[in-house]
């Protein structure tokens, strides 16, 4: 049991540290790769929590999909002049202040004042999570599922409209 906890903390540490790295690095490319690391370890935590389906989904969608798109976009938009793409930051003082205040409020409320002990549910996870998820998607969550499909369609069309426009201008 103990090594499971150790691995959990290991993944947790990687998640937090790489997220902090994103915050402090100014090289956008490095930030992106750190984000990948962060997503990766979150997937690890899911797998540890017996939710391997969610873990794999995390990998597939975030690391395999979104992140690759981000990196791809970065590489297409920056020129090959040897300089790294670096972000600038403004209003540093206010940003830091707001961030710290918000962080401390959230951590105080969620971590220290919430009594999660009472929430322990006695629900047991079904043996075959995939089957369970599939059946629920097609019955109880049918409407959200279909809405998500339409949402994606609309978003896709929207993205096409916006990106097509730029091409016309160039011509």
């Amino acid at each position: 049991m103990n090594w499971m906890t150790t691995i959990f903390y290991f993944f947790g540490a990687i998640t937090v540290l790489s997220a902090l790295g994103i915050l402090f690095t100014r090289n956008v490319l490095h930030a992106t790769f750190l984000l990948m690391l962060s997503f990766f370890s979150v997937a690890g935590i899911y797998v540890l929590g017996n939710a391997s389906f969610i873990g794999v989904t995390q990998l597939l969608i975030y690391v395999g999909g979104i992140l690759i798109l981000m990196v791809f976009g970065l590489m297409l938009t920056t020129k090959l002049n040897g300089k790294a793409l670096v972000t600038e930051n403004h209003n540093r003082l206010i940003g830091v202040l707001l961030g710290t205040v918000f962080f401390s409020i959230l951590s105080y409320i969620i971590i220290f004042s919430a009594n999660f002990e009472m929430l322990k549910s006695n629900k047991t996870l079904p043996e075959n999570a995939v089957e369970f998820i599939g059946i629920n998607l097609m019955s109880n969550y049918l409407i959200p599922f279909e809405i998500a499909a339409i949402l994606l369609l609309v978003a896709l069309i929207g993205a096409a409209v916006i990106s097509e426009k730029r091409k016309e201008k160039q011509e």
Partner: protein
Amino acid sequence: MEYASQLNNQLQNTIALLSGYWPEFIIVIGLVVTLIIDLIFFNKEKNSNWWIGFVNLVFLILAFTKQVDVYSYFSNLGEFMKLVLLFAGVLFIVFSLTQTHQTKKAGEYYIIFNGLLIGALLIAKSTNLLVIYLGIEMMSISAYVLSAFSFNKNSAEASLKYLLFGAVSSAFMLFGMSLLYGFTQTLNINDFELLHTVKVIGDLPIKLAVFMTMFGFLFKIAATPMHIWSPDVYEATPTFVVAAFSVIPKLAVFVLLFNIADKFLVFPEVELLLQFTAILSLTIGNFAALWQKNAKRMLAYSSIAHTGFLLIAFFANMQSFVFYGLVYLIMNFAVFGLVKVVEQKFSITDIEQYIGLGKKIPLIGVLFVVALISLTGLPPTAGFTAKILVFSGIWEKYLTNHNPVYLSLFVFGLFNTVVSLFYYLKIPYFMFIKKSNEVILNEHKSSTVLTYLIGSLVFVLILCFFLPNSLMDMIYSINFAQ
């Protein structure tokens, strides 16, 4: 297997639920049909606006009639407001149809508007966090895209701003929702028992979760701390889209607020937050509008102020809210339509350029005056009736529970009505009163159909002042108890 029988039950429930979704379903079919028609029959060069818009109109009217059935079955606030939203959708499409020369991506324009409408309908109907989130996202994503539909630099900037603010507020909302789900272990708001959960989890976390969720909702109605996006977006977006923006998402989210009120407003803090937001929206919206030079920007601030009024109506009673919402819809469509007419005729949107227009286009000038008077809330227009209803409602509320907050809502509302007079009447002032130095403006053709449409809307505004009974009867047919 007992699992199989359970599954059978689940499926039966789902199928039973689906019948309430007919209007949305019809719109989705319309969306897909539009997509296919646009793909097959229309090249980029062809003027597809009329055909595609017409097809959409047919589907929307079908959905509207279906919704009448659904309403007669359920007859609660959500279903009634869905009727109103569909009416707004029909208005939008009729308005857009008058623009015969509009060729820029007509297919996508209507498709994405349909997306916006579906999102709004879902929000108005549902009390499931997941559906609400998806609905809000659908509405937002459609709105981000629609606000880029002028296809110029400003429009792209506005769209990006909208997207950034919207994404942050969505993130907050999602965080809040996830906490709520974690605490209550259910996605259905009707099953929430927050007061009970407070005993288990503790006071602060639940309130935090509720606040964060509300944050996202308030963003959508452009209530004050979360209103910063709206002037830029309103200014750069095509005018009809702005008319839709200022009505459809707002009313939908207000219905959502009604639907969740008895669960979320168990905390006095949440109630106070909303009341405070109402006062802030009123004050900031009205005072900022005083300094605006662009008509669309001014109307953006005016719509922020109206969010404040709607919030007051939310606290007064449902009837006054529904009345106010309906009148607000008609007023806004009329005013934005007029702005569009002027924009089209003379390609101007600055108020100062409206100088002397009253003589050139007297009909439009008169319509403008009536619509703006209605927005201010003066007789003889429906805006006055709506405001009277809201104020009497809130006064009654004050008399029953003597809460000073209600009194201050009342006072601020009255005070701001006076303030709004100054900027609303700026347009008639420039149009009719101020002497012009004969600036020669290029005149283009504008749609006469559109002018008549707006005329009929304005007529309805006046009619509702003199004969509010039929409208009130309709509103009282809603089963408010649910």
